[in-house]
C-alpha cells in the first residue's frame, strides 16, 4: 500500500455549472429558529418559499413554529398594494400573536429580490416602531445568492453591526456558527479548563445576549460556511484564527490549539486538558473505524461541510475519498483543511447534477453523501447514501461527538449489511 500524500492544491479544483440540487438559504431557518429562542423568522416571498420551509422542516415541529412566510400576492406585485404597508400589517399580526418575541428577522427571497423590495429599510422602520420591544433585522435567504447553509452566513452577517463593542482593555474568544447547546457547553468547559474564561457564541441562544466584538476579540469558526460574517467581524477588529474545523479528534485539537496559541497558553496545558477526552474519543472512534476503513465515499455538493468531513473520514476513519464536491469553495477559510486532504483527491466546486450522477454511477462508491431529493433514487440504484441535512442538525462537533459523527456514516453501511431483503 502506498503512503498517502497530503496537501491538496486548489489549482486542481474542477469548477462545474448546471442544474443544482441543493436547498436555498431559507433552509437555515429550520435550525436558526431553534437556536435563537426569542427570534421569529418572517420570510417575505412566495408560496414556494413557504412550501420549501415546510418540506425542509419535514413538518416535524409540533409547537407553533417561530417562522412564517408573508406570501406576496398579485396585488403586491401589480403595485395595487403598498408592499411596505402590507409588511407592517403582517409584522403587527405576527408580533400580536407572539408577545414573547424579542427579535424579528425579515428574510429576503428570490421574488422579493427580483422586485427589489428593500427589506433593509423596512427593518429600520420597524425597529424604530417597535423600539424597546423587538429588534428587527433583515437578511437574504434567496436561492439567487445563497446555497443552503449560506443562509446562516447572511443571517449572522446581519447581526454583526448590532454586536456591542468590546471594551478596549478586554479580550474574548468568539465562536462563530450554530452549535447544539450541549456542544456549546462542552466547549465552554474545555476553554475554561484551558484558562480562557470569556468565551462567547454567535448566534447566541437569546438575541438579548448578543456577544461583544472588538480589537480584543479572537475569532474561531465552528462552521465552514460563514466567510462573510467572519470578514465583517474582522472589520470590527476581531482577529480570525487559522485552524481546521472542530470535526474529529484532529480537527478539534487543531481548533483548540489555535485558540490556546492566540491566548499564549502553554502547549503542555493543552495536552493535559485534552488527553482524557482524546483518549475517550479514540476509543469510541476505533469501533466506527473498523466499519468505515477502506470504504469509498463521494460527497455531492450540498452543506459546505464536505471538505472538513472528508478530511475527518479519510484521516481518522480510513475512508477512501472518491470525489469531494462542494457548492462553493472558500479558499482562504478552507486552506488548513485542504492541507490535510489527500493530494490526489478529486475536488469539484459548483454543480452540474447530471454529469455528476454519471460519474457517480461509474465510480459506484460504498457511500454517497447527498440531499434528501436524491437519496432514495440512488438507493434504488443500489448505492448506499447518507443525507447531508442530518449533519447540520446533529451534534457532530468536538471530541465527544467524533464517534457519533463517524457513526452517522457507518449506519447506512451497517444497515445495508444487515438487511436480507
Amino acid at each position, binding site marked *: 500500500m502506498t503512503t498517502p500524500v497530503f496537501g491538496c492544491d486548489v489549482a486542481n479544483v474542477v469548477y462545474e455549472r448546471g*442544474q443544482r440540487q441543493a436547498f436555498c438559504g431559507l433552509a437555515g431557518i429550520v435550525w436558526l429558529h431553534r437556536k435563537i429562542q426569542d427570534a421569529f423568522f418572517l420570510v417575505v416571498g412566495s408560496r414556494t418559499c413557504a412550501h420549501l420551509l*415546510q418540506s425542509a422542516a419535514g413538518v416535524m415541529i409540533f409547537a407553533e413554529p417561530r417562522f412564517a412566510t408573508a406570501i406576496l400576492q398579485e396585488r403586491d406585485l401589480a403595485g395595487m398594494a403598498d408592499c411596505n404597508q402590507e409588511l407592517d400589517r403582517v409584522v403587527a399580526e405576527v408580533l400580536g400573536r407572539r408577545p414573547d418575541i424579542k427579535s424579528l428577522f425579515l428574510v429576503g427571497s428570490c421574488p422579493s429580490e427580483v422586485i427589489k423590495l428593500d427589506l433593509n429599510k423596512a427593518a429600520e422602520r420597524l425597529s424604530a416602531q417597535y423600539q424597546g420591544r423587538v429588534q428587527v433585522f433583515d437578511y437574504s435567504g434567496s436561492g439567487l445568492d445563497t446555497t443552503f447553509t449560506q443562509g446562516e452566513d447572511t443571517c449572522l452577517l446581519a447581526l454583526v453591526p448590532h454586536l456591542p463593542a468590546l471594551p478596549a482593555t478586554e479580550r474574548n474568544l468568539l465562536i462563530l456558527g450554530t452549535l447544539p447547546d450541549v456542544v456549546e457547553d462542552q466547549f465552554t468547559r474545555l476553554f475554561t479548563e484551558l484558562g480562557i474564561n470569556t468565551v462567547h457564541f454567535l448566534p447566541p441562544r437569546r438575541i438579548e445576549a448578543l456577544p461583544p466584538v472588538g480589537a480584543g476579540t479572537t475569532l474561531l469558526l465552528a462552521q465552514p460556511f460563514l466567510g462573510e460574517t467572519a470578514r465583517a467581524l474582522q472589520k470590527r477588529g476581531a482577529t480570525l484564527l487559522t485552524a481546521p474545523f472542530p470535526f474529529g479528534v484532529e480537527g478539534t485539537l487543531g481548533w483548540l490549539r489555535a485558540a490556546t496559541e492566540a491566548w499564549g497558553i502553554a502547549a503542555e496545558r493543552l495536552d493535559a486538558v485534552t488527553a482524557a477526552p482524546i483518549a475517550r474519543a479514540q476509543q469510541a472512534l476505533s469501533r466506527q473505524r473498523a466499519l468505515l476503513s477502506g470504504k469509498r465515499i463521494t460527497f455531492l455538493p450540498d452543506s459546505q461541510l464536505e471538505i472538513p468531513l472528508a478530511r475527518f473520514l479519510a484521516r481518522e476513519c480510513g475512508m477512501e475519498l472518491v470525489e469531494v464536491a462542494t457548492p462553493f469553495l472558500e479558499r482562504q477559510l478552507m486552506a488548513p483543511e485542504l492541507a490535510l486532504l489527500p493530494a490526489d483527491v478529486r475536488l469539484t466546486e459548483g454543480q452540474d447534477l447530471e454529469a455528476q450522477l454519471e460519474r457517480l454511477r461509474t465510480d459506484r462508491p460504498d457511500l454517497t453523501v447527498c440531499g434528501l431529493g436524491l437519496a432514495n*433514487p440512488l438507493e434504488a440504484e443500489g448505492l448506499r447514501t447518507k443525507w447531508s441535512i442530518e449533519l447540520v442538525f446533529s451534534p457532530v462537533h468536538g471530541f465527544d461527538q467524533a464517534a457519533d459523527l463517524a457513526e452517522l456514516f457507518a449506519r447506512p453501511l451497517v444497515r445495508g449489511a444487515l438487511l436480507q431483503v
Partner: protein
Amino acid sequence: MQLTLWSYEGPPHIGAMRIVTSMTGVHLVLHAPQGDTYADLLFTMIERRSQRPPVSYTSFQARELGGDTAELVKRTIQETFDRCRPQLILVGESCTAELIQDQPGALAQGMELPIPVLALELPAYTRKENWGASETFYQLVRGLLKSRVPAPGTERELRHAGARPLANLLGPTALGFRCRDDVVEITRLLESIGVGVNVVAPLGASPQDVLRLPEADFNVCLYPEIVDQTCDWLRRSFGQPTIKTVPIGIGAIHDFIAEIGRVAGIDVGTTAAPSSARLAWHSRSVDSTYLTGKRVFIFGDATHAVAAARMASEELGFTVVGLGTYAREFAREVREAAKRYGVEPLITDDYLEVEAQVAQAHPELVLGTQMERHIAKRLGVPCAVISAPAHVQDFPARYAPQMGFEGANVIFDTWVHPLMMGLEEHLITMFREDFEFHEGAAPSHLGGSKMAQPGAESALAIDDSIAPTAVETDAAVMTWAVDAEQELKKIPFFVRGKARRNTERFAQERGILTITVETLYDAKAHFGR
C-alpha cells in the same frame, strides 16, 4: 401579503410536477432558481418514489440574471431532450422566473424539437398546487387530442352489441391520497359490474395512452380537484359522459354503480356487495354502539371531506360538528354538504383558523390532513388522516385504498382505531378518580399513556382558556361553587368546555349568581341531547 405558517397546497408548478411524475414519457423543464429543486424530495421522501421526478431545472442564480437567462432555458431544454428523449416536453416556470419574464414556453416552441412541446402558464401569485395539476393535465390532454376532436354534430359511434363498456379512470396522481390503491380497487369494482378500464391517467399513463382516451365510453372522475376540467372538455369534445360520484363509502359506492348503470346502459340492479365488504356489519355490531354521536370535525380537500362527512354521518353514526376544505375552487360542494349536517362550512387555507375552529368545536375525533394531525395532537384529540397533504406514514406499504368496498373497510378501521373502546370509556366515566385509568390515559390498545398525557393536559388547558372569557362577560357577579367546580371535573374532558359554557349561559339567562351542583344538572337537563 398573506401570513402563512403551514400551507395546505404548494405553488402551481408543484401541481405540474405531480402530473409529470405520475406519467411516463413526459418531461417537465422548469425555469426556476437554485433551491426550487427541494420539490424533488416530496416525491422521493414523502412518497418514497425510487426515481427522481422527470423534471429539469434551470437553477439560475444572481450572476445569470445580468446575463442571458433565455440562453440558459434553451440549453436546459436541449440537454433534457438529448438525455431523456421524452415523447413530450412541458415547459413551465416557478414564481421567480415568472417575474423575470423570459417566456420559456415561447423559447421552447421556437426550438423546433421533433416532439410536442407544451408551454404551461402557472400563475404563482394567484393559483395553487391543485389548480396547477388540473391545468397541466388539461393542457396536456387538450394539446395531444385537439386535432382529433370530431366536427361538431358528429354522432358518437355506438359500441358493438355485446361489447362490454369501457371507462377511463381519471385523476390519480403522484402525492395524491392513496391513489395507487384506489385505482386497483375501482378497477376491480368496475370489473365486477362488467365494465373494462380503457386508460388510467395521469398515474402510469404515457402520451400514447392519452391519445387512446376517446376510445372509452365514459370517464370516471375519481379526483375532481385534478380532473374536473379535463372531464368536462372530453365530454364536450368527444361526447364522453362523466361519472361524478366519488365511490368513497358504502352509500356512495352504490350511487356510483347506479350512475354507471344509467350512463353505460347496463343492468347493475342485482350487483351485491362482496362478502369482503365488512363496514356495514361492523358498524351494526353492538360493540360499535359507543360510536353513536361521537363528535367529529372534518377538514381536507373537498372530495375527501364531503365523502367523509357522509360516511361519518350515515355509516358510522357519528355527529358531524365541523366540515371544511382548503380547496376554494370546490367550496360550493362543501357548503352544500355542510347544510345537510347543519354546520357552518369552513372554507379557508389558513391553518390557524382551522385550529381555532377545531378547538371551538370540541370534537372527539378529527378527520383531516397532515396539518389537522398536528392540531389534534396539540389539543389531545384522536385524529385520522383522510386527505392530502399527507406525510410519509400515510403512504403505507400495505394495500390501503379509500375507495370501493375495501376502502370502506380501511376507513372503518382507521377512524375507529384511535378512539377509546366502548367499555373502556364507560369505566373511565364511572371511576373518574382511578389513578391509572383516568381521562388523561391513552386508549389501552394504543399503549404508551405517556404520549397521550401532554395532549390531554393541553385539552384541559383549552377548557381553562375558554372559561375566563365565558365568565368575564358577567365576571362581576357569577361564580362557581366549589362542589359544582368539582362536579364539572367529572364530566369527560372533551365536552367539559361546552358543559361549562352551557351552564354559565343557563345561569346567566336565569340571573343565577352562584352556580351549584343543582345548576349544573339543571343546565344539563335543559341542553341535553
